[in-house]
């Protein structure tokens, strides 16, 4: 291992942010905290993006590793010990200075601190703890902090760190125990899930405590998140969604992030991916995740053992609606909140506006358009005062072909005849259009 002692802060920053970039958990949302007079920082629940990098992803936090030295050898990771890359580490002082100075200039919303595992899990966790302590107590930093819990570290250390951070995460990385064994030999399911459970318990305990004494310091107030890599191992979308659902339900996770696998290492156990990272698949997983968290969908409604992968051509909500045409069309002026939420082309905001506006009289299609409903998609599934927008048949093939549109229909035909490769899909459809997914910040 090449350890460079004499690097400038800029060189360290270059290495240690480059090594952290595959971690997507960079949103800063989830907690509202007012500033304290004279100290630096507050936190905004809505999340604020400060810049966007060339890959179109939001830059919100100073995302760095404390060190890229690591004793483990996870196959997919650039920092694995068998890789021959320059190694370095920040000092706690350097991390504090960078955070404070970036924050004052409004470059960032806070700090995201992760790390390779130096010497041992405990040693590393303690370094992270010391850094946070300095930042909070000596520098009086009041902004957002997201920190990684190191699998296998002492629960006491994790707890102490949790009282200084806004969010903690432990990456599951691979959705199944098999995948983990194959690609991350140093880790195991239980090493990851045990601290996850501990953080969950800390959060719940703290919730009760807060009710009794208002002054109790809060334990990871913005909750806990995790990340899964998409397409490094053979799991299908259904398995991924079932795991995500279980994490939301059993571990109270705030967010599950999905990261399209980018091959950084040559390794026979890793897939080759000639078509580039599976960005479309990642996009579909985010859409479905969104449906589970805000639209009341369950994983089992979107996919099943027999249909284990998302439709490449339709978003999961349209796809679901087309398989449930018997419940459509729904009457916009009468249907309840959850029924409206399931209509393609309607979102949480527009449904709320519909409910507020229709109290004062029936809505027509023009009003829906103003409210922000995407009529192009919704018109097949709704009536206004008993009438559809155009006289159309509610019939699967008819609606599908319209929803797909001309351009995509071509791709569809090629796809069904089997001569179609994933690569061309990206060119033809210009896919990873993450822009219609407001609020999902990557």
């Amino acid at each position, binding site marked *: 291992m090449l350890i460079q002692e004499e690097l400038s802060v800029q060189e360290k920053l270059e290495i240690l942010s480059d090594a952290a970039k595959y971690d997507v958990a960079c949103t800063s949302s989830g907690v509202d905290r007012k500033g304290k*007079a004279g100290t630096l920082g507050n936190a905004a629940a809505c999340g604020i993006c400060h*810049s*966007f990098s060339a890959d179109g992803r939001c830059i919100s936090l*100073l995302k760095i590793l404390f060190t890229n030295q690591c004793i483990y050898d996870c196959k997919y990771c650039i920092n694995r010990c068998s890789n021959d890359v320059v190694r370095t580490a920040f000092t706690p002082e350097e991390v504090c200075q960078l955070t404070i100075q970036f924050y004052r*200039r409004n470059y960032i919303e806070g700090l995201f601190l992760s790390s390779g595992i130096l010497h041992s899990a405990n040693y590393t966790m303690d370094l992270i703890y010391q850094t946070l302590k300095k930042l909070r107590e000596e520098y009086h930093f009041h902004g957002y902090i997201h920190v990684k819990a190191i699998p296998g570290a002492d629960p006491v250390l994790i707890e102490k760190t949790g009282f200084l951070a806004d969010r903690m995460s432990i990456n599951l990385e691979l959705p199944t125990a098999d995948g983990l064994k194959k690609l991350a030999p140093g880790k195991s399911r239980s090493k990851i899930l045990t601290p996850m459970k501990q953080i969950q318990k800390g959060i719940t305990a703290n919730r009760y405590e807060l009710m009794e004494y208002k002054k109790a310091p809060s334990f990871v107030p913005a909750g806990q998140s995790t990340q899964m890599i998409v397409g490094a191992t053979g799991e299908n979308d259904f398995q991924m969604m079932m795991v995500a659902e279980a994490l939301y339900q059993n571990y109270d996770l705030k967010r599950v992030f999905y990261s399209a696998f980018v091959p950084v290492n040559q390794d026979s156990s890793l897939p080759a991916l000639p078509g580039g990272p599976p960005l479309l698949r990642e996009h579909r997983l985010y859409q479905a995740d969104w449906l589970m968290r805000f639209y009341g969908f369950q994983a089992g409604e979107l996919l099943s053992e027999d249909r284990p992968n998302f439709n490449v051509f339709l978003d999961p909500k349209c796809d679901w609606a087309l398989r449930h045409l018997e419940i459509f069309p729904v009457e916009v002026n009468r249907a309840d909140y959850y029924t409206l939420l399931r209509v393609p082309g309607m979102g949480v905001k527009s449904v709320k506006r519909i409910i*507020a506006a229709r109290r004062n009289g029936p809505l027509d299609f023009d009003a829906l358009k103003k409210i922000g409903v995407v009529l192009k998609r919704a018109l097949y599934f709704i009536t206004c005062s008993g009438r559809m927008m155009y006289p159309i048949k509610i019939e699967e093939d008819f609606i599908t072909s319209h929803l797909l549109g001309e351009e995509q229909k071509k791709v569809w035909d090629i796809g069904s005849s089997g001569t179609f490769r994933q690569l061309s899909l990206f060119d033809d459809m210009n896919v*990873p259009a993450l822009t219609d997914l407001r609020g999902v910040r990557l």
Partner: protein
Amino acid sequence: MKTVYLCENSVEGILSGVYAAWTSRKGHANVKLGLIGDEDTMELFCQYEEVPVNAGHADKVVRAIREKISEEAYIVVYKAALSKERDRGDKIYRFLIYGFHLGAKVVHMLQVPEVFEIFQMCRNIDNETHLLTGFVRFVEMEGDLLVSRIGPKNDVLVLLAPHFMDRLSGENWVIYDENRKKAVMHPALRPWFLVDLISSEWEERMKKASDEDEYEALFQCFRKSISIKERTNPVCQRNHMPLRYRAYMPEFSHGLKDS
């Protein structure tokens, strides 16, 4: 003949105009609100009347909105008055006709075109304010002063100030709106205030400070290394971060291309 009431371009000015037009008793169809300085939209066969700012009148309108419509309606009107929309004065007037008629529920009635107009103006200004809470960039100048320059379409300064006042309460900072030649100033641990400012001297000083600020270089380096090459997507980047904001951000070297 229609009477056009020309008011000063400020919240107070517009509300003074509302008062003058309303109390003229000429009938809503026969009055219109315009802004002083917007003469190129002048119409023939109209009578023009300039309305001086009158704090007492503006106050009366504010009180009436809060009491007879709602607090929310007042916020909506206030924001609309800061909007980039040329016709904002008259649009506010038309909205208030419905407001005083319908009461609190007016703000939800997007099916009414006059309400929808105001709703869109508010949405636009809210969006711009939200983007700027992230895109404002401060440069550190001598004497522990943080200075930022923006060029927003809407008059967002007073909406931005509370955010930074809470976040940077212990810092001395200035945000300068170069389109409107005014600035919010915040001395550490004190309330913020608005000033009119002509800035040719400021711009020089900011440029110099920006060249000397070592953290700008560090942030540029961070932005570059955090991007994943295999996912490069300038369209997505542009959708989130319209080009017009980039001129004010050091990471684009004050130009438009990603540095």
